């Protein structure tokens, strides 16, 4: 029976690896995802073939409960809420790791008779799993706007606090390793790690959340591999480690796309301690903003040769992608050349905008990557910014004191005129002032993105 299990595990590994390779290419991605899922089903079946399994009813109960929650959640989540859903799914994975280690501690009466490596691997899994669970919950809260997106930290006490909590978790672990069997110790590990997960992610600004989620994803993978070591289960070792490694690479790639170093993200807040203070100082100066109307905006665009639409999270929230597409069509009928400039991290996840615009049937060739489109702004009559903010902030290019200095941006301000569609003058996700709005070439169209674009459409039809 164990031979059959091992054989099935090997099939599962092959499917995981092949599936992941598929996920890295646009053509093969959908198939790759299902290949990996097939591998998972095989791994689960193989595990259930383990001889002398008991507690079948409870096992079935757990799986059914999970399916009842997971399937509708994945099916019904709006495309805009996808990033936080991934954070949540990642969190429960980490939570499962921590819970398994806890149960294992109880079952084996404090790891009695287990070799040292099993104890170390289990406790490592407990700590990392719990951090991942609570950290993911914070990431979810920030992306879902339950928690404020701005960094929340205790300033200079942040690093000592982290160190104390880590020491607490490791201290309890060492006591367990030394042979202590008190239940309070494993609960201590769980609580210290939980607190650590919270204080690690709270100080990180909302704009960095995608990278954080990716990092926690890699952590959960590592903790799964550690659990595999402790339980002597090769499937968990292989799958967990592959995710740990590929997740780390992916995290680095994402950070690179935002021109942020992983270290500075983890160190907390934008650009370290001074970030928030600088952002606050910018608000003191009162500068002028030019508001415009839907009809003016319509006229401006109708008589333009080239219009570039810059979508952002605001478009996603307002579900305005369809009306934006309709507007673009009207403009094209008038002979205006329309394209869309996609910043790598526009929205709240890389690829977020591509997904939404594809949903609205925007032709693929009109979507332009940042590097391709930036030179074109200078030859563009109107840049229409729909609910994007930080990714258009020229301060990232020109102002070394800006917290987002160095982040690659869309050079919207090079266009002959800029229309910014925005609900209010509030700052963006990163919580910083955008000088673009005070540029004399910029006019602001305040209101809900969907409503305002619909009004622009009406005006366009009337011209």
């Amino acid at each position: 029976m164990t031979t059959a299990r091992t054989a099935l595990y090997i099939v599962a590994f092959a499917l995981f690896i092949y599936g992941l390779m598929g996920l890295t290419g646009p053509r093969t991605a959908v198939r790759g995802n299902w290949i990996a899922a097939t591998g998972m089903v095989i791994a689960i079946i193989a595990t259930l073939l383990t001889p002398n399994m008991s507690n079948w009813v409870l096992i079935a109960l757990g799986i059914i409960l999970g399916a009842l929650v997971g399937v509708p959640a994945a099916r019904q989540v709006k495309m805009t809420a996808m990033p936080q859903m991934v954070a949540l799914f990642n969190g429960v994975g980490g939570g499962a790791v921590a819970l398994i280690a806890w149960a294992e501690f109880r079952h084996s009466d404090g790891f009695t008779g287990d070799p040292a490596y099993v104890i170390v691997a289990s406790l490592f899994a407990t700590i990392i799993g719990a951090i991942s669970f609570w950290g993911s919950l914070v990431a979810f809260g920030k992306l879902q706007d339950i928690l404020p997106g701005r960094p929340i930290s205790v300033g200079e006490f942040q690093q000592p606090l982290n160190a104390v909590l880590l020491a607490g978790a490791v201290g309890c672990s060492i006591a367990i390793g030394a042979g202590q069997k008190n239940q309070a110790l494993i609960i201590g590990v769980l609580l210290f790690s939980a607190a650590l997960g919270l204080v690690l992610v709270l100080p990180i600004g909302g704009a960095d959340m995608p990278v954080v989620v990716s990092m926690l994803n890699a952590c959960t993978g590592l903790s799964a591999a550690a659990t595999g070591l402790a339980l002597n289960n090769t499937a968990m070792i292989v799958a967990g480690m592959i995710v740990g490694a590929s997740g780390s690479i992916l995290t680095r790639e994402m950070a690179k796309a935002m021109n942020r170093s992983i270290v500075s993200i983890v160190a907390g807040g934008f650009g370290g301690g001074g970030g928030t203070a600088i952002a606050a100082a910018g608000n003191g100066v009162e500068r002028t903003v030019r508001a415009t109307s839907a009809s003016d905006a319509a006229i401006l665009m109708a008589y333009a040769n080239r219009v570039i639409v810059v979508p952002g999270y605001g478009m996603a929230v307002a579900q305005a992608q369809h009306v934006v597409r309709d507007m673009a069509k009207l403009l094209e009928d008038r002979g205006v050349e329309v394209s869309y400039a996609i910043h790598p991290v526009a929205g709240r996840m890389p690829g977020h905008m591509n997904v939404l615009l594809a949903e609205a049937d925007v032709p693929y060739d009109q979507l332009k990557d940042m590097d391709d489109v930036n030179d074109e702004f200078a030859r563009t009559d109107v840049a229409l910014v729909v609910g994007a903010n930080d990714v258009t902030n020229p301060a990232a290019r020109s102002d070394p004191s800006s917290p987002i200095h160095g982040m690659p941006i869309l050079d919207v301000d090079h266009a002959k005129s800029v229309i910014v569609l925005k609900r209010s003058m509030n700052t963006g996700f990163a919580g910083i002032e955008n000088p673009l709005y005070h540029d004399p070439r910029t006019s602001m169209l305040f209101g809900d993105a969907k409503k305002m674009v619909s009004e622009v459409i009406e005006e366009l039809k009337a011209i």
Partner: protein
Amino acid sequence: MLLENLAILVLAGFIGFAVISKVPNTLHTPLMSGTNAIHGIVLLGGLIVLGAGVSGVLSKVILVIAIAFGTINVVGGFLVTDRMLGMFKRKPGGQK
């Protein structure tokens, strides 16, 4: 046993590094979501420990929750990834 498992661990790590070489920005989110689903493999740990005949109500409750969490991770992860990718699928052949 430990050394064999460590060998597997290291090799799996290298495979993980090798698979993700150059990924277009657009695929970052689906790829993250896909790997996210794969670490739902922790579900197996819950199955093994609970199946090994754990006694005690609290331990059983903990493990049922762990299995439920693992299942959410797996099922939700793969379905969400598929939905994200479904948005891309239509693009090349979509209406022109």
